[in-house]
């Protein structure tokens, strides 16, 4: 009897020792969770998970980063569900248009209060992307990557059309679109009528969506310059010089497939288009130029993502360490190689050496504007999508459609 008892006691001691060791090991290591919508079509996720996070964990052996990549179209709903269930992660790479909404829900930590040395980081990034984190007196995040839309085209298709270069002005866009149509090609394909799609044309024509304080759309969205910009696109569409996908996502080939098959020559798009094309359509070659200029110049729309810290985070210090790392030169440069445009000012020196097309993006972003910073942006965007589509389909004139849209947006801005 004695031997089995001794054996049992020994086994119990070993188990207890094992548990204690395991607990000690876990106690010394903090795990933070990071939700993002980096694209797995291109090299973004791979770059994050095989280069950046391992480098961070090597430099910070007491912190483990659990990366959760969620498709962009699902991330917003997942965030909302997590808000309701109090299950948010420590850090989120949020689309810039969601930050006011999340801040308004009270689930984000104000970094200008909670992050030591916030100013040294905020002053190192471009002011435009930084402004997208501002909501009711506080900064609720820092920009992580930025982007804008430029004229992305296939030079081979353009050459086959006998055209010497991409359109530089509205007038050239109109004449070249007519020329391309004669040869069975759409010069310009656009995949929607939302703010991301239409605002570059309105702004480039000198129009506006709202007043400067973002409180009123009537008199701006339905002003003569905004109407003329949309009218130009409607004219192109009605002349059969733009594909149906601007109104109906199922109207034809998507922009990438269309460009790859030489049915379309160009679209407006961000820097990821080049990365996706090089991996998905390796035979195609893209080039970029500025959005065709109108009376208001060549003005595009600011896109990008911010990195935000949630109020629920139980490891704020560790999360902020990772946040700072993501804004460092190493991580910014690595993601730039994967097609993500950096936000740190110091990148202007080295960015064009990574990819030549970044030079055009840097030039375009200098004049690019953000969409209206409001928690109601999703609704505003839906109004734009629906009402402007009516003008394309011909059920309303452009003026009527923009009058209606402006009236509805006024209500949402109150």
């Amino acid at each position, binding site marked *: 009897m004695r031997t089995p008892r001794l054996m049992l006691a020994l086994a119990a001691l070993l188990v207890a020792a094992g548990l204690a060791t395991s607990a000690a090991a876990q106690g010394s290591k903090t795990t933070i969770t990071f939700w993002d919508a980096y694209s797995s079509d291109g090299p973004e996720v791979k770059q994050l998970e095989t280069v950046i996070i391992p480098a961070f964990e090597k430099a910070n052996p007491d912190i483990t980063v659990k990366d959760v990549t969620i498709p962009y179209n699902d991330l*917003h*709903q997942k965030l*909302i*569900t997590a*808000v*309701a*269930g*109090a299950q948010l992660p420590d850090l989120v790479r949020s689309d810039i248009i969601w930050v006011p*909404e999340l801040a308004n*829900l*009270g*689930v984000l930590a104000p970094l200008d209060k909670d992050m030591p040395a916030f100013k040294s980081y905020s002053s190192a990034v471009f002011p435009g992307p930084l402004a997208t984190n501002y909501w009711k007196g506080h900064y609720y995040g820092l920009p992580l990557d930025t982007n804008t839309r430029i004229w992305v085209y296939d030079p081979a298709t353009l050459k086959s059309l006998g055209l010497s270069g991409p359109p530089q002005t509205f007038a050239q866009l109109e004449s070249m679109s007519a020329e391309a149509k004669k040869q069975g090609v759409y010069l310009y394909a656009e995949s929607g009528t939302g703010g991301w799609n239409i605002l570059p044309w309105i702004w480039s024509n000198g129009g506006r969506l709202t007043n400067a304080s973002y409180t009123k759309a009537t008199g701006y969205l339905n002003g003569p310059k905004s109407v003329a910009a949309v009218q130009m696109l409607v004219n192109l569409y009605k002349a059969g010089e733009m*594909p*149906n996908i601007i*109104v*109906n*996502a*199922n*109207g*034809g*080939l998507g922009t990438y497939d269309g460009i790859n098959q030489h049915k379309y020559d160009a679209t407006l798009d961000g820097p990821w288009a080049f990365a996706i094309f090089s991996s998905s359509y390796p035979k195609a070659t893209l080039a970029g130029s500025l959005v065709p200029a109108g009376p208001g110049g060549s003005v595009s729309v600011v896109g990008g993502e911010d990195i935000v810290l949630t109020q629920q985070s139980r490891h704020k210090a560790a999360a902020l360490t990772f946040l700072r790392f993501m804004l460092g030169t190493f991580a910014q440069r690595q993601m730039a190689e994967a097609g993500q445009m950096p936000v740190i000012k110091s990148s202007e020196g080295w960015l064009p050496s990574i990819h030549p097309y970044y030079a055009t993006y840097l030039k375009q972003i200098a004049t690019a504007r953000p969409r209206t910073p409001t928690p109601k942006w*999703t*609704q505003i965007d*839906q109004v734009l*999508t*629906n*009402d402007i*589509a*009516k003008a394309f*389909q011909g059920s309303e004139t452009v003026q009527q459609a923009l009058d209606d849209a402006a009236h509805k947006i006024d209500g949402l801005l109150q």
Partner: protein
Amino acid sequence: MLRTRSTASSSSGTSGARVASPRRPLSSRRRRELRDAYLFLAPGFLLFALTILYPIVRAFQISLFHWAIAPGAASAFVGLANYAHALHDPVFWRALGNTGFYMAITVPTQIALGLAAAVLLDARMPARGLYRTLYYLPVVTSWVVVSLVFRYLFITDGGLVNWVLHDNLHLISRNINWLGARWTAMLVLGILGTWKGIGWSMVIFLAALQGVPRVLHEAAAVDGARAWARFRAVSLPAIRPVVAFVTVILVIGGFNVFISVFLVTNGGPFDQTQVLLTYMYREAFSFLDFGYGSAISFILTLIVFALALVQLRLFRRPAGAS
């Protein structure tokens, strides 16, 4: 047993009036039976209460508020304002109309074609098992896959359907904008739903038809009834409860259409193809108006509940029928 006792006690009254008899205590055996019955019912009822009753009650509660989703945040009570909003919202009415249209297309066709397939596959024929499997295959195929396939089939420029109709058969002068207009898009969604659902109704009908006694068919045949007459006079009355069941389930399913619409048109273009659930989903999860979203879902629950009751009443076996 209870009925016998009651009858006995009432008939014992001297003036013909019902005399209240003192309630007899239940025997210990009866109590045990009742306890066992409730014990067996309890898990199912708990599950039902947790997954059906509680969400319904909670949805109704949320629909009375301007609901703040963050835990701990105060929600403003707005009474029936969300319901009033729905009644004055043209997109809600369009979504309701589209949902009704979808149901009107998919329910009769699934019943008719499912029943026809079941009758055919009930007969002795070569490769019957293979055909049964083939008909059932769409049911087990993922909604996501099927929806994306249909989306690509019906793309205006470059879709297979227009390619066949326009480029090959020259039946149409220009490509049809199938998914860009309300009724053609709803028609496509209806075809999708029907194609995917026929196999399910077929299996249920097939099981019911196999339960109809062969002797009845043989007797009818001896009396000179042909196949159609036998189906109408023997099979159909025998499977009437199953037809009722399939109809009720299909109507509920039709009103709950979501995945196919969400993936094929996402309610677009400009809300022309919204159905109640896609509209509810957008209001709640995109616009964070959970109060209004809950009101829409509660209205949907009421409609489905009312329709189910009406159907059950309509299908009730006529008095005196065996």
